[in-house]
């Protein structure tokens, strides 16, 4: 009996660690969608680039964890802005499908361009954290788990503060509410959109570094599956809604670790996509979303 409860708590810890990564990626998806209604397919790949930047910082420059995390976030933020300016800005007024196809193109470009640059081989992340384990009533916390959860919580707190209490955040909310009206009120929407991409990409990079630390290995295609899953998380919480992405990410992580814990780990991905389809069919606006009536 006791071991079952231990097992359950262990899976919850694992789920929260994994879920906090999904939540960080999902935040970027949700912010970009909220502001320009684009599913930024390349978001998972930005996470991958962030992971590589973190790897470069830790194993080549020998930086400790925090500076490496910052370095990766800055690199990814710049990349996010560049992608937005080159690929998405010309399509601001095109159909959403055209923008979606472009995003898929950018994603493929980063995956295989990355493969050409850093080669397809899997790289090992250097051990950034000590292998210390804490045992509370038989439930094992790894040092890495705690750092991951803390990092995610701090970053989400910072994001919440930025969006709710700063001038930039106010402008972001205004642009996401009504772009044209925001423009008329003197907000430079292009800068705000770039800023949104920068923040989202930085969060993705943080997720990438944490993922590298958590799973120890990185490769150029690592962004695809977590990217899609983070999208599922964003849809689950209600796309365009920031708290929704956090909750959706954590929930998805928990569900996945429960499915794995039940011994069906090969079906893990299928369950995530099944949730996606069910949410889309039953309540497309997500858990936190309001139903918007369509007008002709």
């Amino acid at each position, binding site marked *: 009996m006791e071991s079952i409860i231990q097992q359950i708590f262990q899976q919850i810890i694992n789920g929260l660690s994994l879920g906090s990564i999904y939540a960080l990626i999902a935040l970027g998806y949700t912010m970009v969608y909220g502001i320009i209604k684009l*599913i930024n397919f390349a978001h998972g790949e930005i996470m991958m680039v962030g992971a590589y930047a973190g790897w470069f910082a830790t194993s080549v420059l020998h930086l400790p964890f925090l500076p490496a995390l910052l370095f990766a976030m800055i690199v990814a933020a710049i990349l996010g802005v560049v992608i937005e300016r080159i*690929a998405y800005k*010309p*399509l601001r007024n*095109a*159909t*959403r*499908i*055209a*923008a*979606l*196809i*472009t995003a*898929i*193109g*950018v*994603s*493929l*470009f980063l*995956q*295989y*361009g990355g*493969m*050409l640059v850093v080669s*397809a081989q899997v790289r090992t992340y250097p051990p950034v954290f000590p292998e210390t384990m804490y045992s509370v009533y038989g439930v094992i916390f790894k040092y890495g788990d705690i750092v991951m959860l803390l990092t995610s919580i701090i970053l989400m707190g910072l994001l919440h503060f930025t969006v709710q209490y700063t001038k930039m955040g106010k402008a972001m909310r205004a642009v996401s509410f009504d772009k044209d009206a925001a423009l008329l009120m003197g907000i430079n929407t292009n800068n705000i959109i770039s800023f949104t991409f920068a923040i989202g990409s930085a969060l993705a990079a943080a997720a990438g570094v944490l993922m590298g630390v958590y799973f120890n290995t990185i490769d150029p295609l690592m962004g*695809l599956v977590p990217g*899609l899953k983070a*999208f*599922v998380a964003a*849809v689950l919480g209600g796309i365009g809604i920031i708290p929704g992405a956090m909750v959706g990410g954590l929930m998805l992580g928990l569900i996945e670790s429960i499915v794995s814990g039940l011994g069906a780990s*090969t*079906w893990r*991905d*299928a369950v995530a*996509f*099944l949730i*996606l*389809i069910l949410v*889309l*069919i039953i309540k*497309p606006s997500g858990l936190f979303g309001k139903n918007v009536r369509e007008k*002709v």
Partner: protein
Amino acid sequence: MRNWFNRKNLVMLLGIVLIYAVVQGLIMTDIMPPFYKLTLILMCIYIILSTSLNLINGITGQFSIGHAGFMAVGAYVSAIITAIMHGPLILGILAGAIVAALVGLLVGLPTLRLKGDYLAIATLGFGEIVRIVFLNMELVGGASGFTLPSRITWTWAFVLMVLSVLLMKNFVGSTHGRACISIRENEIAAESMGINTTKYKVMAFTMGAFFAGVAGGIYANYMYIIQPMTFSFLKSIDILVMVVLGGLGSITGGIAGAIVMTLVSALLAGVPEWRMVIIAVLLIGMMIFRPTGLFGTKEFSLNFLGKKGDK
């Protein structure tokens, strides 16, 4: 009474027979290297795939990016029938196509209520689920794949391709096809003109799934081995690129896209990373500079041959 044997149709028929005969002759006399033959048969498969995706994405204007899922269903079902049950080839391909169409119907009914990018994501999710189901199926070898004899010849591939394209082309020209086009142009207007949009969307989706199943059946029975990885998200993107390149809504455009992309893939077979980078740049460039694709919604046709005399 329409005259079926007008000049246009005769030229078309002659062209088709000529292409078939030349290639068949080269294969029979062993002049054609095996790699060329592979490329030609792949071309037939991709033409079916791109035309069937065009039916959904181009003609009806619904955005699906899970086409590889239907291809996988067709491939695996036909493989089970031909290799495990030792059924005849045509039965296998037909059964694969019918099961794919049924799956298409099942998936299409609930998801086609969604619009635009939501539909895209739902179909993507579906494609991945199909792949994972086959990955976990012991009967068909799981991740390591399923081997079966190669029974598809050039004749099979070519005849099936011509038949599929002809059927889909005639569908587009029919009342139903026109209803589908009206949904693409303006769904609300179509609905107010009394068109049952859900019915036609599901019809186009099911038909697209059917022919994707046919293509999957040909693929499975030619390639010796099928693996779940073959039918990943990337395969769907491959097909999408062909349609987007040729022109969403143009059957001939989609065919041209399929031919060009198969050739590009064959030429860059030694450097797969470059192939994907080129595809990516093509996609982005097309969307920025010519979002309608090379052909737009125009069709290449031989109508100019029939101007005198008929009609």
